[in-house]
């Protein structure tokens, strides 16, 4: 039987009827149409489904939707403002941090959580923070460069171009 939940997704309050055994991943993609969040392994091994809950990068495939009520959720659709991309998105595009693109939303959001806590991470800290996200194209070098460059841009005053 469906139950009513109220979610805070990308700054908007969304009231909807959901299956209680559905994960946040299923609700985001199937009930809210936010398909930027990808389903990969669905078992917590790949990081493709990572979203921000209360500012932490967590795996939406392992999060029961009922547990997210009352917490702000940010998906890739909620990054940036209007037509202005988040510096991470800009740098991923510019430096080739996104190849096939499947891991990208999880990578970008996980990196966002890192930079919000630590605006000046070392390369080792970036690698450690992204170590739960798998890139099947193996484009890790460009991903790490993109994160470091976005961090540098943000520290320099936020202009991404």
């Amino acid at each position, binding site marked *: 039987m469906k139950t009513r939940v109220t979610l805070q997704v990308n700054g908007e309050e969304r009231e909807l009827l959901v299956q209680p055994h559905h994960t946040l991943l299923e609700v985001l993609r199937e009930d809210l149409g936010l398909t930027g969040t990808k389903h990969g392994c669905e*078992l917590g091994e790949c990081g493709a489904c990572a979203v921000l809950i209360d500012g932490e990068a967590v795996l939406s495939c392992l999060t029961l939707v009922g547990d997210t009520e009352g917490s702000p959720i940010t998906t890739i659709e909620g990054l940036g403002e209007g037509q202005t991309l988040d510096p991470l998105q800009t740098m991923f595009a510019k430096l080739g941090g996104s190849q096939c693109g499947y891991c990208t939303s999880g990578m970008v959001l996980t990196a966002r959580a890192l930079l919000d806590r630590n605006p000046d991470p070392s390369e*080792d800290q970036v690698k450690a923070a992204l170590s739960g996200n798998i890139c099947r194209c193996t484009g890790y070098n460009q991903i790490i460069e993109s994160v470091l460059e976005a961090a540098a841009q943000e520290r320099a005053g936020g202009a991404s171009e």
Partner: protein
Amino acid sequence: MMRLPVLSHFTPKTLDEAIALASELPSARFVAGGTDLLPKLKRRQLGASALISLTRCEELQTIKRLDDGGWRIGAGVKLVELVRLPELRSSHPAIWQAASQVASPPIRSSGTVGGNLCVDPRCFWFDQTAPWREAAGQCMKIDPAVVCRVAPNSPRCWAVSSTDLAPAMGAARAKVRIVGPAGERTVPLPELYRDDGIDYMTLSHGEVIVDVEIPGSVGWRSAFWKIRRRQSIDFALLSASVEVFMLTDEVLEARVGLGAVGSCPLFPPEVAAVLVGTKLEDDVIEAAAAAAKKLARPMETSDMPSSWRRRVLPVAVKWALREVRGDDVTDARRRYGPQVLLP
């Protein structure tokens, strides 16, 4: 799409409410971070008619420094919160090192202290997809009518204890407070476990771990070493936690915890005894490692042969002992578990 089985989900706001719900629902399971339970439900390794989330129970969320320098840590505290506690890193390095090596960063953001203590023992024959297990003919842990595929003549299941916090917290003399329908009790951490891959905990239905109390560590030095295939995510192939009490350069008391080499964490007094009264000289460290090797009997439960795990267990014990002796282990840490270097 790998979906959970159809089930109901409750999000009680108090522990009393959670326990009362469990009493009414005999086939419900408690869930905290869900990072161990949900994959197992999705792969149909475990069943449940309902999940009772403990995430909203305030009683499980404490992190408190105690007067003796110890800690009371709520079972609902997320692993990432422990990793972000520099005071824990300096007071109880082994526990901090264990927490910071559980799975991957996003899993530590959801996974909890209590959840890690309750991680379901793992086995190559059990932790597989449903079609794989079906093709292989299942195993005792799924179907009691089938033999244990690891030891076909054994009357018991040999799935391997895979919690990282338990060997570290047990060696640090932690006590666990449990609340259930029959009231409250506190047990030394090792008593949480049974040496059985299926019925692996001494918790009864409706009982919840509330918090873990870790005594102060003045005079104690500790280290935790975990060996796994991929440093970024995997469960332990084996782990070793050591605690030594030394006021000068002589060990007055010692405790050793071994993880992932049996169906429960092991705290062998005979390994700790080798260390007492010594100055952790090289030959003492060799002797303690040999004693650990003699005692641990890993079975063919993992994707590395048990002979390899037996050979490498003493290596982990040795590095942990060198670390508490004060040796510079930075290079070895980088090789075996680089995440430990980074908060």
